Structures are given as C-alpha cells and as structure tokens.
C-alpha cells in the first residue's frame, strides 16, 4: 500500500534525495519548529486538552524533532511507513481529533516550506518534494484514523447487537414467564399432532414432566376409549376449523380431567415446528360444581312441587290406614277369618310402604340442615355394624369392619352419616342376597385432610353409567330409588364426595369427607 501511495503522489527517488539534502540543512531548526508547534497547540483548548503536563510536552517535542529528522532522512521504505503509522495510532489512542492533526500538519508544512525557501539550493523542487512527502504523511495519518474508525464502528455494532441480544433475551424471558406461569395448560403441537411445547400447568395437571412428553403424540393424553373412536380430540382441533372445544384429558395417574381447549394456528414450514398452540383450562372442578348445582336446582324445583304432593298423599293414606285398622278390629270381633285378616294385613303393609316412600321422599326433597357435632368414626362403624348384622346373617353375607388403628374424630352429623353407611352397606348386602351371599367390608381410613370410608362387596357390580344417584332410579324389587339419592345429598351436604368403582366381583363405594374441626360452623 505504501508503494502504491508513493506512486499516486508521484513521490520519486529524486524527491527523496532533495529532501535528504534539505534535511541536513534544516535539522538545526527542528527543535525551534517543534517548540513553536507545541506553543500553538497549547493555545488551543481542544488540542490542549490531550496534554497532561510540561514533562509530556517536552517528551512530545523531542518526538516531533525525531519525527522531522526521520521525515527529512531520505529513506522512505516500509519501515518508515510502519514507524509513522505508529505515531498516527498514538494520536488516535490519545483521542486527538483528525482536524487538529490536519492543522498540525499545516503548521509543519508551513514551517518546512519556509525553511526550504530560505535554505535550499533548489527551493521550488524541494518545496514540491516536501509537499508530496507531507501528503504521504497525511495519507498515513488518515489511514490510521480510518482503521481506528472502522474498528470503532465494528465495536459499536457489536455493542448494539449485544444490547439487542439482551433485549431479545429479556423479551424471551417475558414470554417464557407468561407461558410458564399461566394458570392454563399451554401446549404446542406440530402439524402431525406431536407435542413440542409443554408448560408448567400442563405438567401439574397431567403429571407428565416436560422431558417425558415432548415429542410424543398428543393422543397419549386422551382416554383410551376415545383414542380410536373420536379420532383424538386434540388433533382434530389441530386439523379442524373449530377454535375451541371441550375434551377429556388423561393424566399420568389415569384420571380423566375435563379441559376446555382453545387453539391458535401458526403458519409453519417444517414438519417439527409448532403448528398450533393449544391453551386448555382444567374445568373438571367447575363441571362437577355445575353438575351439583344443576342437580340441586332440579331437586329444588321438583322437590317443592313433589313435597306438596307427598304431604297431600298422607291424608288419604291416613283415612285408608284408619279404616283398615277398623276392619281388622271388626274381623277380630267376629271370630278371626285368617284369609280376611291376611288381606287386611296386605293392605296395611302396602299403606305402610307408601307412607315410608313419602317420608323418604320428603327427607330427600326437603333439605334439612346438618346437626354438626364431634363425630367418631369408630362409634359410627360400631353402631352401623350392630344394625346390619342380622340382615347380613339372613343374606348369608360375611360383614367385616376394617378400622384404622386410631379413631378418627371430625365434625359431622353423625346420625345422617350413619344413614349413609346403613344405606350403602344395606345396598351391598341386598346386592349379594340373590347370589347366595358373599362379603361386605366397611373400611375407614384417615388421610391428611380427609376421612375415607369404603364399602366394598364382591357382588355382581353396578351397571356402568347407571344414574344411580338419581332419585327413583332403582334396580331393586320394592326399592324406592331414594337411598343413594339421599346418601349423595348427605355426603355433599358434608362437603364430601362419593364415587364408585365397580366390576363384577368387586364394587367399592368410596365416601370422602373433609376432616373439619368440630369447633367450626354448625350448619
């Protein structure tokens, strides 16, 4: 580059020789020029700012003298170029603005050309040679500035991109937080329905950790019976036009949760990119609550009407029963006719049954507030056992109580819970009666926050999806269909839950009640 510069400026060997000759004459003047130069610099505020003190100025003056000696030394090789580039880089380093360098060079030029005019034997050619050389010097200086400038631009760019990177990271962090902290399931599915994104709530609800679910098909989240038939709800959302749908979700533990899904499609190119974000809200508890409310509302409406009717039924029943009693008395007076007595007894029994139905129905239809007091699980089991033993024996059923090692004390309406136990144990025994007997176990267990009561039998089981808790649903001959409805009400009044798992040979009704303290509310 140096040679190219020399050619461009047309700096020749002759010029070099002229300057070398001039240098010998001018050298004694260099300290003076240097002195004057720095005096001028001192006068200028901006340039002066880069000077730190007299000691430094003295050093700089000596450097300038050496520089002028080299400038007029007559040797302009690569080494010269390198040395003078260093000086330029020092200027850049100390922060000398290029404009000061320009005016400094102008000062030098004036001083040297003046000197050439006065001392040189060939002042014109020497002046030209000096001008060319000083132009080369300028070129060197600008070169160093340019290097520094481009380095600075590169650096600024690097800093900017670093900042951009940080901003991007912050933004990423923000979105990641939004997804991770959202109380909804957030899934990303690719176009073939494989899971590519899985947030914290999804982990919590399903029990599947991210690392074990990513890459798997979303079909794994569907209950097995849906996988074949419905063609997988999640993927049908992905494929279909609908934007939201409610579906069932299978947790790792095998439980089914109800989830309302909202889908947002993303245009994609690659097969494994997220083609759809699926947001899901777990509505299982809400749905259960709605179901309870719906049931309660239905009961309230029907109950009010039917309760009125039930009461009215009692009056004609009363007349019938009294007249039957009168008939019975008349028959007995006339010397008992067994057939007539039997007929009267049948009517009497039927009236009693009807009266019983009315009472049970009213019990069910008209909610009574609970009478909550300290209850003992052992005491409840003991009383229940005493009441069912004879029934069990008659049905050839082996009844067993399975109690926890320590009694469980909790707040409850003992009398009504005993009614629950009697109903459930009674049902179990009755289920076993036609099969010639079996086993019924009444089991109580304490959990951290709940007491769990199970009634297990080895009977034929409960039909799948039968509306067993609905009023008047009964499979028993002579059953009122109110036992489980009342049971359900009592359990839910206690803020508990009842569920059943049943297959032939093993049916378990499970009542889960909160372990509330007895000093709580009494309603």
């Amino acid at each position, binding site marked *: 580059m140096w040679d190219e510069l020399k050619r461009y400026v047309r700096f020749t060997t002759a010029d070099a020789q002229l300057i070398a000759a001039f240098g010998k004459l001018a050298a004694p003047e260099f300290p003076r020029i240097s002195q004057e130069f720095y005096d001028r610099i001192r006068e200028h505020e901006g340039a002066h700012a880069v000077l730190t003190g007299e000691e430094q100025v003295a050093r700089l003056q000596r450097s300038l003298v050496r520089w002028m000696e080299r400038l007029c030394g007559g040797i302009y090789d690569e080494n010269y170029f390198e040395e003078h580039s260093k000086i330029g880089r020092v200027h850049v380093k100390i922060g000398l603005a290029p404009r000061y360098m320009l005016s400094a060079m102008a000062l030098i030029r004036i001083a040297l050309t003046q000197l050439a005019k006065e001392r040189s034997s060939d002042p014109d050619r020497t002046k030209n040679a000096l001008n060319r050389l000083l132009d080369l010097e300028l070129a060197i200086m600008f070169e160093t500035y340019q290097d520094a400038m481009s380095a600075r631009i590169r650096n600024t760019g690097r800093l900017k991109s670093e900042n951009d990177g940080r901003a991007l990271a912050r933004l990423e962090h923000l979105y990641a937080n939004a997804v991770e902290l959202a109380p909804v399931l957030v899934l990303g599915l690719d176009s073939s329905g494989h899971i590519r994104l899985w947030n914290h709530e999804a982990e919590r609800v399903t029990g599947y950790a991210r690392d074990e679910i990513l890459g798997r098909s979303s079909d794994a989240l569907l209950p097995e019976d849906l996988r074949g038939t419905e063609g997988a709800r999640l993927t049908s959302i992905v494929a279909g036009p609908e934007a939201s749908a409610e579906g069932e979700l299978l947790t790792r533990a095998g439980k089914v949760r109800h989830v309302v899904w909202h889908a947002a499609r993303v245009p994609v190119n690659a097969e494994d990119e997220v083609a759809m974000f699926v947001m899901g809200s777990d509505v299982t508890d809400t749905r259960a609550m709605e179901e309870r409310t719906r049931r309660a509302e239905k009961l309230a409406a029907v109950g009010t009407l039917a309760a009125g009717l039930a009461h009215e*039924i*009692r009056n004609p*029943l*009363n*007349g*019938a029963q*009294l*007249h039957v*009693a009168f008939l019975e*008395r008349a028959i007995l007076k006339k010397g008992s006719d067994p057939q007539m007595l039997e007929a009267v007894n049948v009517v009497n029994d039927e009236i009693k049954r009807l009266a019983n139905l009315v009472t049970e129905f009213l019990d069910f239809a008209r909610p009574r507030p609970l009478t909550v007091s300290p209850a003992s699980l052992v005491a409840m089991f003991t009383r229940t056992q005493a009441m069912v033993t004879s029934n069990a024996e008659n049905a050839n059923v082996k009844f067993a109580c399975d109690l926890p090692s320590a009694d469980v004390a909790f707040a409850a309406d003992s009398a009504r819970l005993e009614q629950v136990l009697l109903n459930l144990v009674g049902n179990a025994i009755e289920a076993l009666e036609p099969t010639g007997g079996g086993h019924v176990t009444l089991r109580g267990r304490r959990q951290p926050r709940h007491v769990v009561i199970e009634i297990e039998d080895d009977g034929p089981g409960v039909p799948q999806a039968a509306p067993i808790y609905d009023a008047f649903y009964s499979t028993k001959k002579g059953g009122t269909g109110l036992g489980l409805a009342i049971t359900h009400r009592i359990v839910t009044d206690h803020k508990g839950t009842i569920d059943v798992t049943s297959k032939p040979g093993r049916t378990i009704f499970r009542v889960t009640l909160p372990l509330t303290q007895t000093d709580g509310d009494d309603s």
Partner: protein
Amino acid sequence: MSKSPSSQPPHGGQPAPLVLVVDDDARSARLIAQMLREDGFNVEVVLDGAQAIARLTQAPLPDVLVTDLSMPHADGNSVTVFARSQKPGLPVIFVTGYPHLATAQIGEPSPTLFTKPLAYAELKIALLRILPPRAAGTEGAGLRPIK
C-alpha cells in the same frame, strides 16, 4: 259431637278421660273417635281450628288434645296455644301430614307427634301413657263426663 258410654272403661269406675279430636278430615276423625270410645275413652270431635277454639272456651276442658296441624281457620299450633291458655300443661298429640309445621315454642309438655298415616294402635298406646289410670283427683274439673 256424639258421645257413647265407654264399653270397656280402663279407669276403674272413674269417669272416662275426655279426648278432644280436631281434624278437618271428618271421616277419619269420626272413625278415630269411634275406636277410642270402644276402647273406653270419652271423645269429642271438632272439624277445624275455629270449632276447636270455640269448644275450648267451654267446660269441661279435655284431658288431652289430639289435633291435626294443617286445618282451616286456625292451625294445630294455635289451637294448642289457646287450649293451654285455658288449661296450662294440657297434654297434646299432633297427628299430621306436615310434621315440620309443629312449632317448637308451644310450651310444656312437648306435644307427641304422629305422622299420617296414623297407626291407631300407636295412638292408643300414647293416650294410655299420657292418661294413666286415675291416681288421684287432680284436675278433677276436666274429668267429669259431659252430657
């Protein structure tokens, strides 16, 4: 309000105790009365709350009140309150299709509550418990046979 002599007086020659039966179901009320008389009680029947209150303003006052709760003009609770204003401590038996209508604040002793349909035998047992065979001439005024 027909009356017949007790066929089997349970009270050993003493005048039979008087039972006032209040029920707007006339056939049932009369049948109860007939059977009670056969069993040795003195019985009067009235068919609604107003009639009951009218009857209770006159002597002799009954030894026991057997009343329905839901009736025209005045319900069983009101009849009870009025009866006990006339005769404090009067034993009361409610026979009703609406047991939840029984009021708690009705004074002592607490009424015995029967839900319809009524088993006559149970009513008789309850009456015999409330009206033990004459121990002493307490409340003599109410025990005179009326005519």
